[in-house]
C-alpha cells in the first residue's frame, strides 16, 4: 500500500489551540478534519505538511445550530448534513449537493469545512509521486509546467467541491479564526480562480463555521454531472437559488457553476437577464446560454471538454426548471442514477 510521509500530529481541544498551532508554523501546517481529501493527497505526496492538526476533538466544531438561517459547524459531517431535516426542507439545494458528494462511507467522515477547502483537482496532479515523476511533475507540485495548457501562466486545477457553489448561491458566509482574531467572509470571496492559490483563507486561519442566511421565500437546486451514480467528483455542476413571487416573477436569483474553473463561477449577466422576469422556457434557454459562457472546462477531468461545456448549459437549464417548480424527477433519476432527489 502507499504509505504516509512522516509528520507531527496535534489533536487540540479548542479552536484557540488550533489557531495557535497554525500560528506556530503557518506554511507547514495543515488541518485534518475527515481526512478524505488530505490523507490520500499526503500518500501521493501532493501535500507534505510537516505538522498536521486534527480537528476531530475540537469542541463545538460539529453540529447545526439555528440562528437567523442556520449555522453549520465546520466539523459537521456531510452525513450529519444530509440527515438534518431542517437542511433538507429549508435548503434543498444544499441537501442535494451534500447528498451527492462521494459515497456514504466517505460522507460519514468528510466534513462541510473540508469540502469547502477541498484541494483543486486535475488528472495531471491527482496521481502518485511516481506517476508525476514520469511526466516530470506539474506546476501545482514539484514541477514548472501546467500540462493542461503548457503556455498557461497559472495552474488550471479544477474546483471540485459540491457544496461551495451551492453555498455561494445561497449567499452563505464562513467564519475564519486565527490567533490574531476572526473575520467573516462571503463564500463568494473565499475563492480565487487559481488552481494553486484557490483559497483566500490565510495559512494561519481555520474555517470555524458556515452561516446560511434565512431561506424564507427562496428555492434552491443543485445539479451535478459525473460519470457514475456515486463516488465521483463533479466535472460540472450548476447551483441555483432564487426568490420567486407568487406570480412566478423572479425577484432575485443567483447562478453559480462548479467544476468548470479553479473556483465556483457566478454568472451575474444571466442573473440580470432573469431578475424581474417570469422563467419561461425561452428565458431559461437564453439564460443557460449566457451563464454557460463563464464555464471554461479544460482537458483535466473525466469526460471530454467540449461535451462538458455543452452539459453545463443543460445543467443550468435543469436547475432553473427545478426552481421554477417543474417536475424534474425523471431527469434527476437519469442523470444522478438514483432517486435521492425527490425533495419537496
Amino acid at each position, binding site marked *: *500500500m*502507499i*504509505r504516509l510521509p512522516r509528520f507531527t500530529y496535534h489533536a487540540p481541544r479548542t479552536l484557540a489551540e488550533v489557531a495557535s498551532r497554525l500560528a506556530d508554523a503557518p506554511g507547514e501546517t495543515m488541518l485534518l478534519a475527515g481526512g478524505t481529501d488530505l490523507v490520500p493527497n499526503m500518500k501521493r505526496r501532493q501535500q507534505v505538511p510537516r505538522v498536521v492538526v486534527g480537528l476531530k476533538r475540537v469542541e463545538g466544531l460539529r453540529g447545526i445550530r439555528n440562528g437567523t438561517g442556520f449555522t453549520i459547524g465546520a466539523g459537521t459531517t456531510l452525513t450529519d448534513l444530509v440527515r438534518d431535516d431542517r437542511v433538507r426542507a429549508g435548503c434543498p439545494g444544499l441537501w442535494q449537493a451534500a447528498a451527492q458528494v462521494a459515497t456514504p462511507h466517505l460522507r460519514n467522515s468528510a466534513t462541510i469545512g473540508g469540502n469547502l477547502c477541498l484541494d483543486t483537482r486535475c*488528472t495531471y496532479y*491527482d*496521481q*502518485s509521486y*511516481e*506517476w508525476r*515523476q*514520469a*511526466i*516530470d511533475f506539474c506546476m501545482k507540485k514539484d514541477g514548472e*509546467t501546467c*500540462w493542461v495548457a*503548457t503556455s498557461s501562466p497559472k495552474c488550471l486545477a479544477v474546483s471540485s467541491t459540491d457544496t461551495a457553489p451551492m453555498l455561494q448561491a445561497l449567499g452563505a458566509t464562513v467564519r475564519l479564526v486565527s490567533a490574531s482574531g476572526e473575520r467573516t467572509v462571503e463564500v463568494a470571496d473565499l475563492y480565487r480562480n487559481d488552481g494553486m492559490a484557490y483559497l483566500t483563507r490565510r495559512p494561519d486561519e481555520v474555517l470555524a463555521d458556515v452561516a446560511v442566511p434565512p431561506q424564507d421565500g427562496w428555492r434552491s437546486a443543485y445539479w451535478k454531472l459525473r*460519470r*457514475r*451514480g*456515486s*463516488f*465521483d467528483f463533479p466535472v460540472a455542476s450548476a447551483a441555483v437559488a432564487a426568490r420567486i413571487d407568487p406570480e412566478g416573477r423572479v425577484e432575485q436569483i443567483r447562478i453559480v457553476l462548479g467544476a468548470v474553473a479553479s473556483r465556483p463561477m457566478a454568472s451575474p449577466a444571466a442573473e440580470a437577464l432573469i431578475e424581474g422576469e417570469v422563467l419561461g422556457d425561452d428565458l431559461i434557454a437564453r439564460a443557460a446560454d449566457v451563464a454557460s459562457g463563464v464555464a471554461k472546462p479544460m482537458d483535466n477531468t*473525466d*469526460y*471530454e471538454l*467540449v*461535451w462538458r461545456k*455543452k*452539459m453545463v448549459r*443543460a445543467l443550468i437549464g435543469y436547475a432553473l426548471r427545478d426552481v421554477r417548480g417543474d417536475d424534474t424527477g425523471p431527469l434527476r433519476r*437519469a*442523470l444522478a*442514477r*438514483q432517486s435521492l432527489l425527490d425533495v419537496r
Partner: protein
Amino acid sequence: MTTPRTIGQPRRRVDARAKVTGQTRFADDVLLPRMLHGRLLRSPHPHARIVRVDTSRATAMPGVHLVLTGDAFPVAYGILPVSHDEHALCRDVVRFVGDPVAAVVARDEATANEALAAIAVEYEPLRTFASPEDSLAHAEPRIHDYGDVGNIHKVVALEFGDVDEAIAGADHVFDDVFFFEGNTHLPLEQHACVATKDPDGKLVLYSSTQTPHYVHRALAKALDLPAAHIRVIATPNGGGFGGKSDPFNHEVVAAKAALLLDRPVKFCLTREEVFYCHRGRHPVLMRFRTGVTKDGRLTGVDLRTLLDGGAYGSYGAASTFYTGALQTVTYQIPRYRFRGCRVFTNKPPCGPKRGHGTPQARFGQEVQLDKIAHHLAIDPADLRLNIVAPADSLTANYLKVGTIGLAECIRTVVDRSGWREKHGRLPHGRGVGLACSSYLSGAGLPINWNDLPHSGVQLKLDRSGGVTAFCGATEIGQGSDDVLVACVAEVLGIAPFDVRAVTGDTDLTPVDLGSYSSRVTLMMGNAAIQAAERARELLAEAVSAKLEVPQARLTFAEGRVFDAEAPDRGLTFREAVCAAEARFGTIGTTGSYTPPKSPARFKGGGVGPSPTYSYTAAVVAVEVDPETGWITVPTVWIAHDIGRAINPVLARGQVEGSVYMGLGEALMEEQAFRRLPPRLSRALVHKFPSILEYKSPTSLDMPEIVTDLIEHPDPAGPFGAKEVGQGPLLPIMPAVANAVFDAVGVRVDEVPITPEKILKALAAKAAGKPARTGPAAYPENVPWPEPLHVTPPWEGGDGRASNTRASSGRKADAGIEATAGVKS
C-alpha cells in the same frame, strides 16, 4: 442415476461463511514470523535503455536487507512457450512506464519505499511507440528482438474456403470497421504474495494467482530450481478475471529474495501497480467484410483484426487467434477468412481478460448483424434465428459444436423483454438491442503441449466418514471449491458440507491447469466425478459383501448406502467407508480429465477447440437523451445456455457479474494513455491508474437484470454443465450499441459508448453525413502473409491445410494454441 440431491439445488457456497465473516485468508493476510517487505522500483520512462543502476545508497540504508537488479535474473520467462520475453527485473531496456527495474526488501514497506528513492538509475530514452499505427510504421528500434517483423509481434492468416468468391457472389456486401478500446480487470484484491523457505530449505510461494501451476513452472525456470523443490499455494483470489493468470515480476522477485535471505518476503502491489501488471483486454481495430444473401444468410466473412499488445507477449499470440476463432460457432458461416496482427507498443502488456480476445470481434460481428438486419428489413432476432449453427456439427474452421441452446436463448430474451412490441416501435430516445455470443467451456489444448490430463482430482476417504477432495483448481471467487465439493457429494450421496476441498496447492493437490478459459467446472468436474465414482465402486463392493445385496441395487443418498429395494437395509456412509477400508485398506481414488482431440489439423487450429460451447443471448434496453447524449440502461434480459447449473446461485451470480462487467466495457471503462506534447516530453503514461478515475460502474449504475438459465445437459459436461463465467459478458457491449441505434438512429461503432460519441453521431446525421461515430479505416500497411488454406468440411476438407507454408511465423506454434480468458 437417481434424482440429483445437490446438483441443481440453489445452495450457499461452501466458502461463504469464511468470506462473509472475514476469515478467508487472502495473500495479504499471510503473516509469517520474521517476515520482510518488498517493493519494486518501476521505470518512469516508456522506452529507454538502462545505462547504469546505482544501488549503493539504498543498500547502505538501515533496515534494508536486500537490493536486487536485473543482474540477479538472467533467465527469461513468460506464460506462453513462444514468448518468454520477461525478466523479473529489466536488464537492458525498460518498455513501459511501470516496468520494474530494481527491488528492495526491507524491514517494512516505508523503509523499502525510502530505499527505492535512493536508487539512482541512468536511462537513455528510446523512441516511444504509443499506438499500433506507430508500431506498423516504424520497425526500429524494436521493442523486442523477436516477433514476426519489426515491432509486429504476430501475424496470422487463415482461410477456410474461397471467401472472395463467396463475397462476390453475395446479394449484399457489408464492410464495417469497428474499434474496441482496451480495459482492465479491476479485481478488488490487489496482487500480493509471500515467499518463504520451508524448514527443509525448499521454496514456498503464497500468491493471489489464478494459475499456480504456471507460476510453479515459471519459478522453476526463472530461478533455475527443480520444480519438485518449489511449492506454490494459490490463496483465494479477491477476483481475478484473467488479471492474475501470468507469472508476475513480484512473485519471482519475492521467491529469489526469500531464498537469498532465508526469511519470508511479502509483496503487496498498490492499485497503480495492478494497472501496470494489466494483461487486460487488447484494444482491437477490426474490419468485417461480410457477404449476405437477400434473405439474410451469410455467404462468407472476411475478418481483419489489429491488436495493440503493449510491451510484452503475455498470452498475446493466443489472444490474436482468439479474435478470429469463435465467430463460427454461433452462426452458419460457409466460408471464412481471418487475419490478425498484434503489435508491441510501450504500454503495459495486454493479455486475457474475461472473454479473452473474443469480445472485441464479437462486438463487431453482432453490431454488423444488426446493420444487416436493418438494411434487409428483417427483425434482428429472426435474422439470427435463421442462421444459428446446427447442433453436433463442424464449423468452417473445424470447431466441434455439440449442444447449442442459442435459439432457445434468443426466443427466451425476445419473450421476456417484449422485444416484438418494442424493437423499432419505442418513442425516439428509447430503444432495445439484441446480441448473442458463445464461449469455450475450457480450452481444448494446454498452454504447454503435452498428453497429460488438464485436471486431476484425488479423494481421501477415511473411517471418520469424512471425504477430502484435492485438486489444483484455484478459487478466484467464481465458486470452484463449491463445484468440486458438489460433484463429489452428489456421486457419494452425502451432503456438500461433509466434503472438504483442498485446492490450489502444488505440493498437496494434483495438477489442474488453472482458473482460466472457463475450464474449471467442466474439466475439474469431470475429474471429480471419475474419482468419486471409483470411490463409490469400492464402497459398493464392500457394502455389497457385508449386507449381501447386489451392487447394482445399492443406492448412495442422504448419507447412507442402502438397498434400493429395501431402503431400511443399509449402512451409514461412515460405516460404508469403514467396511471399504477394512476390505481394501486405505481408501483413496483419483480422477482426471483430458479434452477430446480436435478435428482441426492445421497450424493455428489449436485455438478455439473446446469440449463444448456455452451460448448466450441478451436484450438491453436503453434510454438516450438526444439533447445531451446521456445514456441510461434500465433493464437487461439475458438467457444463458449453461447445459446444467451445478449451483444456480453461483451461476446466476456469474451472469449478473458478467452483465456488470459488460456494461462497464460498453459504457465507460478505458485503459487509456496520455502523451504529452512531443516537443516537450517523451512521456506516455496511463491516464488514470486509480480505482477512482478508471471508471467502472457502481451499484447505483446497475440496471435490473432478468436472468434465465437454459438447461439442456451437454454430454461433455459434468452432470451436463457448460461454462458460465465468461460467455454472458460478450453480448452486452454489442447489445448496448444496437439499442442505441434503435433509440436514436445512430451507430457508435466502438466502445466505450459515451454520451459525447452519441452526440457526435447525431450531429453527423443532422449534417447529412454517415450517422455514426467510429474508426474511419483499417490500415493498409499490415504485411499479411499468404493465408493457410483449409477447405471447409462441407467442401470435402479433412481439417488439413492445402498449402504447407506457415501462416504465422517460423516456429512451431506449440503452446500458443489454447489458452482463453479467465473468469471469476
